[in-house]
């Protein structure tokens, strides 16, 4: 094991290459660029021995990944924001075709106006495509999750693509020390991909032709079952990783100081890690507060959240908004509790457009709730005149 001090994107590139994909197809977009540049460097050094297809758009990136995965090889890509949105059609295609593609998505604001900072509306708008979605809070978690994701995606009980999300610049361009296992250890953890079916001239099958409603519905149901299977497999894989490498970032959620808490904060991504500082400070002040960092938005950790909801009131911070409704995490947290717990849930929209959400901000949000001054749902730190 070695320690590599580098940015989230270069760490993701390192992880991707160590997973030994046969094909990477990618198109550059800020802030993902250093990820694809990182892989290009590994092509030059010979550490990446697969095929690197520099396509002419993100739509083609995902299409090429679909072709490669259908032909039977491990496949990786990365994108961000508008790139993810351009892929939208093919995200559905990849999931419905049951192709275990792994992709990093660096969470960036959607234009107009042009803004390269972070929020999470890009992946949230893709939540219904069938992809498993992780949200990372450190570069170490990015590395570990990329490797683990191939194992999860390729499991016969899952066979769904995985999107690993992390925040633009806060993680993508910030250097942190990351433990890197030996290649042989990764190879031992992640065995060679052996698909059950593929494009094979010795066994000619037509994939994706016209399908009648009843058979189509079976595919959808099977995808849903597979997301449910992923709920069981994500903790198993995390446990195996912990046993082998000593690191653990949580299962579907990461609980932090939830014992005896009467308020629990829920957040994703970098706000999730920033929140740990806030929780420490608030605990020192005597507040009984904990954190549940949501690691997977799909599958959604309904059971875990219900358990927390039976213990404490919940505070949800969303770095996204489903316009016309509310924060996506807020909605889904409430749905998880519906009819089973009448705990209070407070939602906050924060950090849209890449606005900073510091530990001070998070503490202010938490205090407001604990002191009974919070509304059901509000925008934190909103500076305009809009209501």
């Amino acid at each position: 094991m070695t320690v590599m001090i580098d940015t989230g994107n270069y760490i993701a590139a390192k992880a991707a290459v160590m997973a030994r994909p046969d094909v990477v197809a990618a198109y550059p977009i800020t802030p993902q660029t250093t990820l694809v540049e990182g892989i290009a460097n590994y092509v030059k050094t010979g550490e990446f021995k697969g095929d690197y297809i520099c396509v002419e758009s993100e739509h083609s990136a995902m299409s090429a990944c679909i072709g490669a995965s259908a032909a039977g090889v491990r496949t990786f890509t990365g994108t961000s924001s508008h790139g993810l949105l351009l892929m939208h059609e093919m995200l559905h295609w990849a999931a419905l075709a049951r192709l275990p593609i792994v992709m990093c998505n660096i969470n960036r604001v959607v234009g107009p106006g042009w803004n390269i900072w972070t929020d999470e509306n890009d992946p949230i708008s893709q939540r219904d495509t069938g992809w498993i979605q992780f949200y990372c809070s450190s570069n170490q978690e990015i590395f570990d999750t990329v490797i683990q994701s191939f194992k999860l995606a390729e499991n016969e009980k899952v066979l769904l693509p995985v999107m690993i999300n992390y925040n633009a610049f806060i993680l993508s361009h910030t250097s942190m020390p990351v433990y890197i296992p030996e290649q042989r250890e990764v190879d031992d953890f992640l065995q060679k991909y052996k698909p059950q079916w593929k494009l094979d001239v010795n066994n000619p099958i037509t994939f994706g032709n016209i399908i009648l409603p009843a058979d189509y519905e079976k595919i959808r149901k099977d995808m849903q079952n597979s997301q449910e299977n992923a709920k069981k497999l994500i903790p198993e894989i995390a446990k195996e990783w912990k046993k082998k490498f000593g690191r653990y970032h949580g299962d579907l959620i990461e609980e932090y100081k939830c014992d005896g808490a009467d308020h629990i904060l829920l957040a994703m991504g970098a706000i999730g890690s920033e929140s740990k500082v806030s929780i420490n400070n608030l605990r020192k002040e005597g507040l009984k507060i904990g954190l549940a960092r949501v690691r997977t938005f799909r599958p959604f950790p309904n059971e875990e959240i219900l358990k927390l909801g039976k213990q404490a009131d919940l505070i949800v911070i969303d770095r996204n908004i489903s316009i016309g409704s509310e924060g996506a995490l807020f909605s889904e947290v409430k749905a998880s509790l519906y009819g089973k717990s009448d705990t209070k849930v407070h939602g906050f929209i924060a950090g849209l457009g890449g606005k900073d959400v510091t530990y001070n901000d998070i503490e202010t949000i938490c205090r407001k709730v604990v002191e009974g001054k919070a509304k059901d749902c509000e925008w934190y730190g909103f500076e305009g005149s809009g209501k």
Partner: protein
Amino acid sequence: MAIKNLPVEECMIPGSAACPGCPATMALRIVFKALGKNTVMVVPACCTAVIESLYPNTSFDVPVMNIAFEAAAAGASGVEAALRQQGKGDTTVVAWAGDGGTYDIGIQALSGALERRTNFIYICYNNQIYSNTGIQRSGATPYGAWTTTTVGGKTEFRKEMGEIIQAHHIPYAAQACVSYPEDLYNKLKKAKDIKGPKYIEIMAPCPPGWRFGMEKTVDMGIMAVETGAWALYECENDVVTFNGKSKLILEEKIQRKSIEEWIKQQGRFSHLFKPKKDVKRIKTIEDHTDQIWERYRKKYL
């Protein structure tokens, strides 16, 4: 290769859902005979996605991956890379798309794959319309033709896709026609043995789309060539050679027949003849065809 000597092996097997007189199935038979079973097909949204027949059945005896409308060339790039990574670089990867998926929505992915020197054959079967969706105009629809979205007749000329392809300077590009199976077969055989990107476009007269009888598909293709509405040629490493009747027309050894003879047999042009002959528009078509051939002669003679 005489037609009687073509391989008897068929990868286009019974059970297809094609219309009677479908040019795509006729062309596919020749494609499979030329390329053999060591072939993988990538098919975007187009008539062939229907022709393949319903899940869980198939009318193709080679592996087929369906993909979204604009994604054939990019999908094929991924398939090609994956097969090569598995030591199967000898498998022929074919992207098989219609003119809508080639001239219009798929042109970006196609251009990208050609520029990247993807080792595959991109085949466009060109029936000059979005036929699968019910006869809408495409960039390949000729001037004056009725479609459901050009109800009074198309007011623009079709794209010269061949010239767009040639601008990529790929090792092999060809235009063929379903009515000349030997020529098509030879072009496919040649393409199969060349490394890098290959592009073959097949003129495919569509009975319901062009409004002619299902027994006339071959005739309509022959007339497209004889009137100069379509040219048979191949382009190997930037050297263009015209084939068959098109060669004779190019060299002015024969006169091209008038386009009017071709279009008057197609219901899609009937508004140019009834209730009275639209001399102006018919002349526009003839003049445009002359201009194309003048350009060909300047460039290729």
